[in-house]
């Protein structure tokens, strides 16, 4: 076995192999914490959030966004299912205490029509008013061109909201 050229050796693992290994371990742990737990990559599947979130696009979720703050109207949130490997991405349209309805495609919150600049694919949804209880949020996708019955929308409990999304 021939010894590695010192220049290559230094380029590969620096002056001290031990120190390089420690740095690698620290980097691996940091990567796992940051991208595995706090800000995991998510791939969007489906058309319900078009055009804000394109089918197949990749984003970073923000799992710490709602640890100290509550979701607000207009936020895009990640909603966990049995766990956090597969989640819904939806927009918050109503917060606890709100009355949310759709009238001929217009979102009406607490009796007032709300302008939604993020809705490009609009439709003519009609939905009777839903009153949100404590800890309940109303969520829907931005793509309103699909029939209301075929769209996953409705009330979600606060504990189901696993974080936000960076776009």
């Amino acid at each position: 076995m021939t010894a590695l050229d010192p220049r290559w050796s230094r380029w590969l693992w620096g002056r001290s192999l031990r120190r390089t290994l420690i740095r690698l371990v620290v980097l691996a742990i940091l990567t796992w914490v940051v991208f595995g737990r706090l800000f995991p990559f998510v791939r969007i599947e489906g058309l319900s959030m078009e055009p804000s979130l394109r089918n197949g696009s990749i984003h970073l979720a923000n799992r710490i966004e709602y640890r100290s703050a509550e979701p607000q109207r207009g936020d895009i949130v990640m909603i966990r299912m049995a766990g956090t490997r597969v989640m819904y991405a939806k927009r918050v349209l109503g917060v606890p205490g709100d009355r949310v309805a759709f009238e001929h495609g217009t979102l009406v919150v607490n009796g007032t029509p709300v302008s939604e600049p993020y809705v490009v694919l609009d439709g003519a949804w009609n939905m009777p008013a839903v009153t949100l209880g404590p800890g309940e949020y109303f969520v829907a996708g931005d793509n309103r061109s699909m029939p209301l019955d075929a769209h996953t929308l409705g009330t979600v409990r606060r504990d189901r909201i696993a974080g936000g999304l960076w776009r």
Partner: protein
Amino acid sequence: MRKTLVAIICLAAVAAALVFLLVDWDRRAIMKNLRQLESLVSKDTSETTFAALTRAREIASLFTRRPEIRFPPYLPSVSDRQELSGLIYQGRGMADTISVRIHDTTLEVDSGRREAVLQMTARGTAARGNLEDTDVRELELGWKREDGKWLISRMRAISAIQHPGSGM
């Protein structure tokens, strides 16, 4: 030499005993049946009638004799293994290929080791010709010991997002 051999045998026996004591065999059996279900429901190519019937029976054999199936919600609830086998045969026959993946499983086995509840997210993709449809559901599966095996006694969908008018 003989002492070393005896020591190795003793160590192996202790290791085997530890494995036997520490491994949750009920959990392992349930997870194995779940992976089997995932694999049996999936199909890569069109099947012959005989193969499809056999597969439907194999899938149904993972359920108790009188299961309580409330999924998919648009189908009538099923409470008979034979009936379930027929529905599986029909359902799988409607697609050329089916792919099912299970994620985020949480299993709780009761203290009596007779029943268990498993929550999971299932992602299914079915294709027929050029059409492809994907559905993601959160499911709750009840498991019971029947004839010495862990079998699915109930299945229902859970909705994280309650559609208006769904009775929340």
